[in-house]
């Protein structure tokens, strides 16, 4: 199959998922930032009492809060988790991930099961890894460090 056909047919579960951070609405922002730092991901999802996604806190929101100059680290994360978020079902095609990431200008999507419960997180890096792993002949054969000219003439 070609790249386009694979993206249109293969399910989201074929993507390499990222660590999923789920936090309660009253979790302090400071603790959420620490979790994001430990897991090396740029988003955390806020869940309600039933465990369903209720909001998202991201690096982008963190930058906005820092730029505002107002103290926020001890606020409950729900106060700043109003940013738009979106989910994708585990059996939808990878093309749907591309579409939603692009349409909503997001870095990450939460993957949900048939009951709408969060199971994983995928993002732009998952897509980049998918392209690299599935098409190594095109992507992974690139030289790691190319130069447009040599430092010394050959034989010098």
């Amino acid at each position, binding site marked *: *199959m*070609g*790249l*386009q*056909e694979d*993206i*249109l047919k293969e399910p989201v579960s074929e993507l390499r998922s990222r660590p999923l951070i789920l936090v309660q609405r009253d979790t302090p922002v*400071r603790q959420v*930032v*620490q979790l*994001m*730092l430990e897991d090396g991901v*740029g988003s955390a999802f806020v869940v309600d009492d039933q465990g369903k996604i209720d909001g998202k806190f991201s*690096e*982008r929101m*963190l*930058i*906005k809060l*820092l*730029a*505002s100059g107002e103290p926020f680290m001890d606020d409950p994360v729900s106060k700043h988790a109003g940013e738009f978020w979106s989910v994708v079902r585990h059996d939808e095609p990878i*093309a749907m991930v*591309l*579409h939603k*990431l*692009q349409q909503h*200008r997001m*870095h990450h999507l939460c993957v949900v099961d048939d009951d709408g419960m969060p199971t994983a997180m995928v993002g*732009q*890096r998952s*897509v*980049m*890894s998918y*392209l*690299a*792993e599935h*098409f190594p002949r*095109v*992507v*992974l054969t*690139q*030289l*790691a460090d*190319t130069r*447009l000219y040599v430092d010394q003439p050959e034989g010098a």
Partner: protein
Amino acid sequence: MTSPIPPRRQRRATDPGEFEDPLKNYDAPEYADDLEASLAEHALSDLRSTPVTTVAPDATVGQAIKTMADLDVGSVLVVENERLIGILSQRDVLRRVARKYEEVKDKPIREFMTRKPVKVYDTEPAAKALHMMAVHRVRHIPIVDVDDKVVGVLGPRRVTEYLQQHFKTER
């Protein structure tokens, strides 16, 4: 004593009838579809790389973060004498700045940026940028020209947009 200089090698005039194509055994790469071909063949200069946001290395961390927030960009490139010397991304802010912002906001960005970031040349294929993103695990890659001057920055959002454009044109 005889001279050690060897006799000049005689060059035979090329007979056009004897010309042998040096590329006669070259097989052009075959791609499964146009999208794969475009990744391998299209130069990065064909992609509309995000408008570049640059700051000087002496700008403060606070100024850089305000720039990122105001312009809603994921990274700023640190440029000195038109040369790329570093990058400050959202991830750098999370790792090095967020937890001690009040202490560091007035310090120069050069102390917190990622030095010597991976970069790609604008003549290289889109696949090269994907390779760097996958292997080096970075989201934003500066694009430079032959003189090492910054001409763009490529983020994953632009790559997904590029893939989607190809889907649309081929349907």
